[in-house]
């Protein structure tokens, strides 16, 4: 709780500064960087990774880690694919994918919260298990032929902003309220700070952790639907890159990887920074492998600067 009240996390500020430098530079070198189209196209994958990152923020805040997010996204996508294959109406397809994601998350939450198993072991197991199930259900292929009503998520814009991105912003706002003003948000951070103390204080540790992983599952379900809409198809391996991206986004925002502190804005800054820099490097003709290296340099520089500026220095717990 101390950590939450402290305004000592300067890392998002450093990241914003670095990204602004980068934007000015990219805008100068490439005439396409500031085009509306570039930002529209960029906003969509950002929104998907952003939803998973927000879930990951809660997971990391309570002292856990979720390695299974990519597989949950894939499982939700394949569920949507099967639902569409049986010609279910659009709300039913969406409900099926959300339910699948939530169930997968609840499964993690049950093992981690109630049975007190280590989050890294449980989610490593469910990562492999779920992607195996999803691969088996899809027979290694992809589902196509989704109804237009579902593809709406990809095509629709409001005032030029993709609805996917607006959904992400709405999700982020809800998460911020939950984190700051709900009792549950208070428990999450307290458990991350010191789980034993939280238990002795009579906090509902099991229920809180169950909620954290179930929420992550729900967000993965939403991401699955958005990915299905954007790719007009569903595959088991769809969310593969999202797990590392989400963890990196939370860390880039300055959250301690051991938990006990969280900020939605910092997480949003973290995930946006990754996508803006990746997109800019692509427009600057930077070779793909160098793009990877430079993106990770961003992470290292920001974390180093955060420590230098005193944000992440203090041990908590």
């Amino acid at each position, binding site marked *: 709780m101390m950590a939450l009240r402290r305004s000592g996390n300067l890392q998002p500020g450093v990241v914003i500064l670095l990204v602004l430098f980068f934007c000015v530079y990219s805008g100068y070198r490439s005439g*396409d960087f500031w085009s509306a189209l570039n930002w529209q196209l960029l906003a969509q994958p950002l929104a998907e990774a952003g939803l998973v990152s927000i879930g990951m923020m809660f997971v990391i805040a309570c002292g856990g880690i979720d390695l299974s997010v990519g597989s949950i996204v894939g499982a939700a996508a394949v569920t949507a694919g099967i639902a569409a294959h049986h010609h279910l109406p659009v709300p039913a397809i969406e409900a099926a994918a959300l339910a699948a994601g939530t169930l997968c998350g609840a499964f993690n939450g049950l093992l981690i919260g109630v049975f007190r198993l280590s989050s890294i072991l449980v989610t490593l197991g469910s990562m492999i298990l779920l992607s195996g199930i999803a691969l088996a259900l899809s027979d290694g292929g992809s589902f196509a032929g989704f109804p237009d009503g579902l593809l709406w998520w990809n095509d629709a814009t409001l005032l030029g902003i993709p609805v996917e991105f607006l959904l992400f912003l709405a999700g982020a706002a809800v998460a911020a309220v939950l984190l700051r003003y709900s009792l549950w948000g208070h428990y999450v951070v307290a458990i991350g700070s010191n789980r034993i103390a939280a238990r002795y204080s009579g906090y509902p540790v099991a229920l809180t952790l169950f909620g954290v992983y179930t929420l992550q599952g729900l967000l993965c379900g939403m991401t699955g639907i958005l990915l299905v809409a954007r790719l007009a198809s569903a595959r088991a391996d769809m969310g593969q890159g999202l797990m590392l991206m989400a963890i990196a986004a939370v860390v880039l925002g300055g959250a301690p990887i051991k938990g006990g502190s969280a900020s939605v804005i910092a997480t949003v800054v973290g995930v946006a920074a990754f996508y803006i820099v990746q997109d800019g490097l692509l427009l600057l003709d930077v070779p793909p492998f160098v793009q990877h290296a430079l993106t990770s340099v961003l992470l290292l520089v920001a974390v180093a600067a955060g420590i230098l500026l005193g944000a992440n220095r203090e041990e908590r717990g």
Partner: protein
Amino acid sequence: MSSHRARALASLAFAALLIAAGCSRLPRNSKTLFVMVPKLVGIPYFNSARDGASEEAGRLGLHFFYTGPTAADASLQVDVIAGLLARHPAVLAVSCDDANALAPVLRRARRYGISVLTWDADAQPDARDWFVSQVEDETLGRHVMDVLAEQLGGRGQYAIITGSLTASNLNAWLFWMKKQQQEKYPEMQLVAVVPGNDDQQQSFVQAQSLLQAYPNLRGFIGNSSAAPPAIARAIEQAGLSGQIAIAGLSTPNLMRHYIESKTVKTITLWDPGKLGRLTAAVGAMMLRHETPRDGMDVSGVGRIRVLPETRKIVMGSPLDFTLENIGQYWF
């Protein structure tokens, strides 16, 4: 702490200055920009396609740009292509990791007036203008099975190591290989199809475990350029060289050692450099609003087949590399 902060900010500003000093604006060349996207960057097969395309594009006055995802993953590839759309290339040529998943972003590209080609691996037909194909899936799949069956005398257990289980073109070849075996070689028995994920190390581990799991295994098919060399290495390490037959798709450079050591008799592919060349040539036709014609002679490629109803351009028949001819090829 404030001196720390000042020092950090100063070094950041200095770094930014250094970067800015070393660069100039990129020219906007979108009217002649030809963008080529492989399934993944950094493997020899796509590198030689890039080299062929780059040379031909340069000769035809196109601005050539090559980029792609660093792993074979359809959603990563879609993200890369979405990022490229902001540059409004004139022609976009993509080797699709998944025919369905790539379709929306390619359709979007067409809506923006970009000519879309697929090469090497196709998307849904309405998502592209033309598909530049190396060889028909059926011809290739049946041919590879014939190569294996000839070495096995048409009988015995065999296993297949493919790339990823979701790559549409690999699965199409796989389908025809199995069909050819069922139709022509009923005494052969397929024991396993496993993914090596276009990765030599993974394919090697898969080959090793297959050798352990099936002691009566007499043949392997490597259905992705990384698989046959990995299989050959596993067989040589197990001391089974000459006892287990290998057929499949790979490049001469990757297989040279194993063909020279006689662990592998024949390996099949086509020339990806030629495929790149043809893709660039078709790209140039798109810029000039020309339509490819059946039987037309493309420089450095030869006569091509054009199937206007499916909008497919076929480069030719498969190419077998053996000890006799491998010296002539370098890719």
